[in-house]
Every structure is written in structure tokens, then in C-alpha cells.
């Protein structure tokens, strides 16, 4: 049984002018138990809507969502017991201290005498010395840690993090990812949305990409990286881009990046530059990363691949976890 199952999930928001906004358009995929799964997409792609449908904050217009076999509408109590959701917005209840907040959240889930686990959460998230502080007195980063602790008070088997590291300092990101990776190794399923593609690359065994409410890609992270052009030629240029590069190059100010499949293609690019007599600086060739794949998928019709999106191949690495453990191990890596 998958940890999370989305089946043809659509969400329509009626708009003022009559034309409905389609926030989700027939999204289907499964996340297996123990996976570390990344959900990527630009702003407004429908990531948060999908998570809201999963958490019962929003109702899907059509389709079915189940958490470990429990339908999120018909069997909502069971479904929500399985889920720990870290919301994207930095919200808090100003009336209570950190410990009170966590005790109350435990009580909502019917968990009694939870102080041992609460202490462990406080310790693991670097909140131990803030236990008696009022929520209002905490900095943004500290509030974010409490949100994570709140999501985990009932030891949910499935953890959902909606952009947990947006606007968060490097130290917290490291603490957070080490802790989440540890939970994932213990068997918790993790669903993560993030804007930081290095994080997704380093942590997630599989990745889904959403754009305008539609699935654009669903692959193992390693496959996704393989499928993209393997190299990128990067240089700085002060003059106009040659016509041959139009449509191929990604331009950020002076920086030009050209995806290349092999050495021949790089040579060809360099020849064009030489023939045009361009003055380029800081030429380098680097390996393609998830950002390149992401931009590829978002601009081109990667959609052809979405029919290959059934379940992931069951742990070909021999472990019970769907995710590639080597990727989860490299969590020290994500840089700011």
C-alpha cells in the first residue's frame, strides 16, 4: 500500500469573471513507504494546493487522495493521524509557550504523557532552552523549528514539509535536514516541496515536477539528472548573443549557460564563439544539476514522460526504502 496516493486529483477555483482557475489538473502519482520524495515547481504550480488537499485543508474538485489506504475525506481522522504537516506560512499561537504548544498539539491527536518525545524533539531541533519561552518571543527561525516539532508530536509515519527552508538560515537548514533524514532512515515517508533545488537533489530519491497544476515529470532523481544534457558550458559575455545560441542558452545578466550532451557539442559552441570574434570570460564546463533539468522541463514539453509514472521500482538498492540511501546520506552537502 502506498504511503500517499493521488488519483486524478483536480481542483477548480471559481473565479470572479466566470472562468474557473484550474489549480490542479488530473494529478496522479503514488509515494511508497519510506521514500524521500520531492515536489518541485514554480510559484503557483499547485504544490501547496496539492498538499492542502492531502492534509484536508482543501477539498479536491475530483479525484481521490489516500494516506496509507485511508481516504482523506471519508476516513479523515485516520488519514490525519498518519500525517505530520509543516505548513508553509510562519504561523503560531501567541497565547502559549513552546512546551504548552507541543503538549496541546499532542492532545489533539489523543497522545497522552508525551513529554519524553517532546523533550527529544526540542533537543533535536535546538529548542531545548526555549521550552518555556512564549511563542511571541521567538525569532522567525525558532518559530519555524516549533512548526516542525508540532508536525511531529504524534510521531506520524508520513511527514509533509511545505517549503520548510524558505527564508531560513544555513544552520537551521542543516539541523532540520539531518533530523528529517534520520526520521526517513527510521522508516518515515517524507514529502518535501522546496524552491532550493540543491536540497531536492541532495535529499530526494524521487522527484515530481508540477507546472500550472499538471504533472510535468516524475522520475528518480538520478534518472532525471541522467536524462538531461550531461554538461553545461558557462561563460560571461558583454556583447549580444550570437543567433545560433538563441533558444538554447540560459542568460542571467552577463552569464550565459549552454547545455551540451558531449565534447563535440562543446567544441561546436566554442567554434561559434571564435568565428563570431566574441570576447568571453570565465569559461567553464560543469556537470548539469537539477536546476538545469528543472528549467528544461519547465520550458520544454517534458510532459511525454508523465505516462511512465506508475510506482517507483521497488528498492533496487536492496533496502526497504524507495529512496537511494546514498542521496539521503549526502545531506551535509546542501549549501545555502
Amino acid at each position: 500500500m502506498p504511503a500517499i496516493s493521488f488519483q486524478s486529483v483536480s481542483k477548480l477555483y471559481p473565479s470572479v469573471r466566470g472562468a474557473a482557475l484550474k489549480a490542479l489538473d488530473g494529478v496522479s502519482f503514488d509515494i511508497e513507504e519510506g521514500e524521500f520524495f520531492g515536489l518541485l515547481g514554480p510559484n503557483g504550480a499547485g504544490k501547496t494546493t496539492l498538499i492542502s488537499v492531502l492534509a484536508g485543508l482543501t477539498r479536491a474538485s475530483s479525484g481521490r487522495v489516500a494516506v496509507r489506504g485511508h481516504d482523506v475525506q471519508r476516513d479523515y481522522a485516520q488519514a490525519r493521524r498518519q500525517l505530520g504537516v509543516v505548513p508553509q506560512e510562519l504561523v503560531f499561537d501567541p497565547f502559549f509557550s513552546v512546551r504548552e504548544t507541543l503538549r496541546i498539539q499532542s492532545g489533539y491527536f489523543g497522545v497522552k504523557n508525551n513529554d519524553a518525545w517532546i523533550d527529544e524533539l526540542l533537543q533535536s531541533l535546538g529548542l531545548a532552552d526555549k521550552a518555556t519561552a512564549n511563542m511571541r518571543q521567538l525569532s522567525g527561525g525558532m518559530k519555524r523549528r516549533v512548526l516542525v516539532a508540532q508536525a511531529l508530536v504524534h510521531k506520524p509515519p508520513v511527514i509533509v514539509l511545505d517549503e520548510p527552508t524558505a527564508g531560513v538560515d544555513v544552520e537551521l537548514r542543516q539541523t532540520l535536514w539531518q533530523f528529517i533524514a534520520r526520521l526517513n532512515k527510521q522508516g518515515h515517508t517524507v514529502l518535501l516541496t522546496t524552491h532550493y533545488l540543491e536540497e531536492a537533489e541532495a535529499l530526494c530519491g524521487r522527484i515530481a515536477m508540477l507546472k500550472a497544476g499538471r504533472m510535468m515529470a516524475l522520475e528518480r532523481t538520478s534518472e532525471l539528472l541522467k536524462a538531461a544534457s550531461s554538461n553545461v558550458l558557462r561563460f560571461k559575455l558583454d556583447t549580444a548573443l550570437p543567433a545560433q545560441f538563441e533558444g538554447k542558452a540560459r542568460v542571467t545578466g552577463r552569464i550565459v549557460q549552454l547545455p551540451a550532451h558531449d565534447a563535440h557539442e562543446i567544441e561546436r559552441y566554442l567554434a561559434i564563439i571564435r568565428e563570431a570574434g566574441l570576447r568571453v570570460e570565465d569559461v567553464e564546463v560543469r556537470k548539469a544539476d537539477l536546476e538545469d533539468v528543472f528549467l528544461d522541463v519547465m520550458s520544454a514539453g517534458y510532459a511525454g514522460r508523465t505516462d511512465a509514472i506508475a510506482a517507483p521500482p521497488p528498492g533496487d538498492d536492496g533496502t526497504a526504502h524507495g529512496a537511494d540511501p546514498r542521496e539521503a546520506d549526502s545531506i551535509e552537502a546542501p549549501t545555502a
Partner: protein
Amino acid sequence: MTGWQTLFYKEVLRFWKVSFQTVAAPVLTAVMYMLIFGHVLRDHVKVYDTISYTAFLVPGLVMMSVLQNAFANSASSLVQSKIMGNLVFILLTPLSHWSWFLAYVGSSVARGLAVGLGVFLVTAWFGRPGLVAPLWIIVFALEGAAMLGTLGLIAGLWAEKFDQMAAFQNFVIMPMTFLSGVFYSIHSLPVFWQGVSHLNPFFYMIDGFRYGFFGVSDVSPWLSLAIVSSALLAVSAIAVHLLRIGYKIRT
């Protein structure tokens, strides 16, 4: 402590932590009414033959405080949570719509009764009302608080901003409480306004409540009980339905 009890506890803790504002302040307000209206109207308003106006005023002020504070509790808690965004912590839990209902209305009853008791203890010192039938007092205090706690819950779900909440409070709750006979017996009104007062369910809460103190009332306490109970059932059914469909809280 599980489920709805936790939410109930949290809601009680919420108002108790700011009890200076949520309990002490309304008690002081009621004392002001007592001093000013009691003093000014003492020799001008004739209520029942055997009862002094200041004594008559005590149950009315107590009930008014119970009603207003029960309403304010669930209403302001919900609107604040919606605006602050922290309602999400409750929306993410397995708590059923019945749990929400019990917790929000229960805590509103707790606040209403806490304030009511405070007002009674302070104003009784001026007015010295009797305690003829204490069971009626308890029954009407509970039903009145539950009714307004439920109305507060509905208003809290409906309102998206503080000014919508204030509008509900000022244009619906305030007139209905003031026109229910807190400061007067409706027998002193012209026949037309007596008729209008009989359409106001708040009138029956205060009239029945007052019967418990003096053993006299404008209508039979049994009639009041029947009307108040029916009204309570009706608003409760609406509130539970709104919670079940996630009215304005689950999109």
C-alpha cells in the same frame, strides 16, 4: 486528556491567561451599570411591587454579562485564529466537528459563567436579590451561555475580519440583549413593544433567569425554558452543520 478535551482546555487557557481583560473588565463594566443606572433609575422605574429596582437589576446584569462574554469567547478566538493563521493547527488534527462544537461552546460557557459569577458577587452586595429557585438560575445560565457561545461560533466561522465580527456584535447581539428586559420589566412597555419583546429569544433567557431569584417573572419559566431550549437546539444544529462542511475554514 484527549481530543475535544484538549481543545476545550486550550480555549479555557486562552481566555484565562488574559483574564484581566476577559473576566475582570466585564465585571467592572457591570458594576458601573449597577452604580449609575441603579442610582439614577431607582426612584423612577417601577418593576414588581415587592422588589427594589437595584435588586431587580442584579440578575439582568449578570445574565447580560454571561451572554456577551460567552459570545465574545468563541467568536474572537475563531476570528483571531483565522486571521493569525494558527487555526491550521486544529484543522490538521483528526478532531471531528462534534469535538470542535463541544470545545468551543464549552469554553464559552466556562467564560460566561466565570464572568457571571464575578458580576453576581459584586453587584449582589448592592442589590441583595433573593435565591428562590437556584436550579432555574443554573439552567438558564447554562442554556443562555451555550446559546451565545454557539452564536459566537457561527459568527466566528462567518466573519473574515475583525470589523465584520464587531458589526455582528454591535448590530445583532447588543440590541437583542439590551431590548430583552435587562433594565426593565416588559410589563412597563406599551403593548406593541411587549409583543416585539416576545419575539426576542434573549428575553426568555433573562426572564427565566430572573424567576430563579425572585419567583416572579413576565412569563412562565417553563415557557421560557421551552423557547430557549428550542432556540439552542436550532442554532446548535446550524453550527454543527457548518463545522461538518468546513464552512469558510476548509476551502
